[in-house]
């Protein structure tokens, strides 16, 4: 038991995490490619045409995974940030910092694809639907997190301040989501229910799950790439970095 704890803490140091991340990245890319190709194949060649929405519904194969990932990454980011704050482990704070741009990217993709889906289906690029609105607010939260970290020069302070903000954000997200939903049902005029829109065939669900896996693996791979750069930037004056860079 004791030995396994020691074992895990070993990877909590930047020195041992840097090469480990380097070894893991190709595997996550490979997994992303496998899931992505099979997901794309299902979403374009296996999944049938939707009775109501025609071929336009195929956007959900990227829209839903992007939305899922944008929310999931915020949770993971807050988890790492909180861990960094509680245990003072440097790598977890760096991981939180490296996840933020990917999360923001997912939120942006979710908004973009949501708009492209909304135009043909609802006749408007943007509707104040509860989910789209929450997604927009989530995007703002990501921007705030990144802006705060970028504005603080001392990396240790940036880590801790970012961690507090991420945790405050995590507490607030359910409240925001609930309030936006309440607001949406109150103003019935513009409500459009996305739940009922496509009657989900089994193959569609598979396509979505595979694409979500691809997005997930992609996010891990790119976050690990970025965390390696962050590790080198922050630890540039240490002896091990001088040896690690050949």
């Amino acid at each position: 038991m004791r030995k396994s704890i020691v074992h895990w803490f070993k990877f909590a140091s930047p020195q041992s995490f840097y090469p480990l991340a380097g070894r893991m990245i190709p595997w996550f890319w490979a997994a992303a490619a496998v899931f992505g190709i099979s997901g794309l194949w299902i979403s374009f060649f296996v999944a049938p045409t939707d009775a109501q929405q025609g071929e336009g519904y195929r956007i959900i194969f990227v829209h839903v995974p992007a939305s899922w990932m944008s929310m999931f990454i915020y949770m993971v980011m807050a988890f790492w940030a909180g861990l960094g704050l509680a245990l003072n482990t440097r790598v977890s704070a760096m991981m939180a910092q490296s996840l933020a741009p990917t999360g923001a990217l997912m939120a942006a993709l979710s908004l973009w694809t949501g708009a492209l889906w909304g135009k043909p289906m609802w006749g408007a690029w943007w509707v104040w639907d509860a989910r789209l609105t929450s997604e927009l607010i989530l995007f703002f939260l990501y921007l705030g997190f990144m802006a705060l970290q970028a504005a603080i020069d001392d990396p240790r302070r940036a880590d801790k301040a970012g961690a507090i903000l991420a945790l405050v954000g995590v507490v607030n997200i359910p409240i925001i989501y609930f309030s936006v939903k309440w607001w949406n049902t109150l103003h019935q005029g513009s409500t459009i229910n996305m739940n009922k829109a496509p009657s989900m065939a089994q193959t569609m669900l598979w396509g979505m799950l595979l694409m979500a896996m691809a997005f997930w693996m992609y996010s891990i791979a790119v976050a690990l790439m970025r965390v390696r750069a962050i590790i080198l930037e922050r630890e540039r004056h240490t002896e091990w970095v001088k040896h690690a860079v050949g």
Partner: protein
Amino acid sequence: MQWASAGEFFAMGGYAFYVWGSFGACALLMIVEPFLAKRRLSEVRRSLIRERLADELESQQRTQ
């Protein structure tokens, strides 16, 4: 398989702009982001290598 021809596939039943706009944006950003991450890493590495060479030169000059 519901596509009779490649043209029909790319037309997406009239939704070409929306479907390809979504998938295209995802593909584009998911190529650009790793590229930027890669560049950030190689930039740090380059500057670290430069630093080390400068250190080595300095120590050589000192010994001479």
